[in-house]
């Protein structure tokens, strides 16, 4: 099936400032896709363009196969979204806020009660939105996004302002949404959160995508080796082995792309070659480390 979200050189300028710079995204059906970046990277502006709220300066955005600029109604018919903080009428109850959206979409009040139950808000449904805790507001935002049973759900910083328990609750909810066959486009600056629940990610920095791919491929696994001198000799020995695919410097050590169970083999190889090993261990970078690495590379460039 075609991509659920696809952008082609999507760009947005506000005056002279380029907020989103020629981004090319592809989100596949049924996946949880993480859209990462520090605050101010252009994530919310990108979501705004995907939802037809913000006009691109150039480039195109396709949602569920429709061009958002030309066929917005068709594109957004099966999209549910929560952008930044959940925005509702403070004087209305949570239930009435959803009833407003349901009425506008021609949906029944029964559907409102169903989604309230789905996000576990039934008990407080008749209380005013202004009295809700941050976690309840986020859950109501997700309920609103689910109201018309969308195929694609876009959530912008859904765990913002939540305590660890609240964050876990939202993560479980997102997982269950994906489990029911929906595609989730999750915008966040919390890298550990994305690493836990997303299959693929794109990293945005200053409006540009600097990395995109499977989380598993971005998170680097290998063996870290620190030798006592003889660095050139050690590198030559390692390069001569067929199961070492890449060697890079990592401070005063080497980071070797090799299966973790080859640690003993590497040790034997280096020792036999006359290189003294000070430290050798399995190594795994987190998405956060990867993010810092690629953003640092960009800074240097």
């Amino acid at each position, binding site marked *: 099936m075609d991509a659920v979200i696809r952008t082609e050189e999507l760009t947005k300028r506000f005056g002279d400032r380029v907020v989103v710079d020629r981004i090319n995204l592809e989100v596949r059906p049924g996946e949880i896709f993480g859209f990462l970046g520090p605050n101010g990277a252009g994530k919310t502006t990108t979501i705004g363009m995907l939802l037809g*709220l913000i*006009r691109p300066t150039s480039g195109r955005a396709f949602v569920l196969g429709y061009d958002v600029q030309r066929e*917005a109604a068709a594109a957004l018919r099966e999209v549910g*979204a929560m952008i930044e903080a959940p*925005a509702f*009428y403070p*004087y209305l109850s949570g239930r009435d806020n959803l009833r407003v959206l349901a*009425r*506008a979409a*021609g949906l029944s009040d029964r559907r409102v009660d169903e989604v309230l139950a789905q996000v576990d808000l039934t008990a407080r449904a008749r209380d005013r939105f202004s009295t809700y805790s941050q976690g309840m507001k986020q859950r109501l935002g997700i309920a609103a996004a689910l109201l018309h049973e969308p195929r694609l759900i876009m959530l912008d910083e859904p765990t913002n302002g939540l305590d660890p328990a609240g964050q876990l609750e939202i993560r479980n909810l997102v997982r269950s949404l994906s489990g029911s066959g929906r595609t989730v486009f999750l915008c966040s600056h919390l890298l550990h959160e994305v690493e836990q629940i997303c299959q693929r990610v794109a990293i945005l920095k200053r409006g540009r995508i600097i990395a995109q791919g499977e989380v598993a491929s971005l998170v680097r696994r290998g063996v870290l080796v620190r030798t006592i001198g003889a660095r050139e000799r050690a590198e030559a020995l390692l390069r001569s082995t067929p199961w070492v695919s890449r060697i890079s410097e990592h401070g005063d050590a080497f980071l070797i792309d090799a299966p973790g169970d080859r640690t003993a083999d590497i040790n034997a190889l280096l020792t036999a070659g006359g290189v003294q090993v000070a430290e050798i261990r399995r190594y795994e970078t987190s998405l956060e480390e990867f993010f810092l690495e690629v953003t640092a590379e960009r800074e240097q460039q």
Partner: protein
Amino acid sequence: MINLIRAEWLKLSRRPLSWVLLSIFLVLLAAQVLVQFVLTVGMPVRSGAMSAQFEEWRRGILFPGIFATALSHVNGLGGIFAVIFAAGAIGSEYSWGTLRTHLARDPARDRYLLAKLATIMLTLAVATLLAVAFASLLGLALAPLLNASISVTPGDLVHLILGILRALYVLLPYVLLTAYATLLTRSLLGGLAIGLSYIIVEAGFGALALLRVLGGVWALAYNLTIGQNINTLTIMNRHAFGLRPETTAPLDLSQLPSPLQATLVVAVYSVLFLVLSLYLFRTRDITGPG
């Protein structure tokens, strides 16, 4: 469109601001009627111009003149309330960020804005009906105290329907001007400031009326202002129920635009503000709350 109007109605009818404005509006209407009543019964017998003024006030609290008083209240103070109400209904969507919540689900911006404006006018129609009903109750209570009969003919009821439509038509350009100003500034306060400023400049200071004294093109320009044309329509409402404001106020009816011109000029302003609002709303980016 009907679904959107139902959604807007739910929002506006549950909003405390709507009820606060309606309550103040009705209290002020009651105050006006009671002041006219007190002046009518509490003053000694008069003659000449004073007598005509007092007679006008008396007719204004009896049937069918009480209808004219209610409609005059709608087009007087009601204009200010309509501006506050319209600015609140549109501006709060920006400040609360709820506009983004709606348009992310249904991107048809024209339809959304038209439904919102239709609901604002519908709410103002309900408020006008309530004002007429409330004034009628006051009229029913006061008539026996003034030894007056309560008589409403079928003709009065026809005039009442036309009068209500005319009163709403008079409010329309102010509501649409406020809508445009609110969209332009993306703010409740911006819309409120511009809408109320226009009313104050036009009605409060009478500054625009000075243009008429200059004659020629200036007088023509003055005759094309919203306020001058609305005067024609509001006086028609008073005449329809037997009131004669020209006998007690320095009002030269020959200087007023014709009913046809008044109707057309108000329509032109309304269409202009509506088109500008739709264009602005359709072409602008919708960003976060603020």
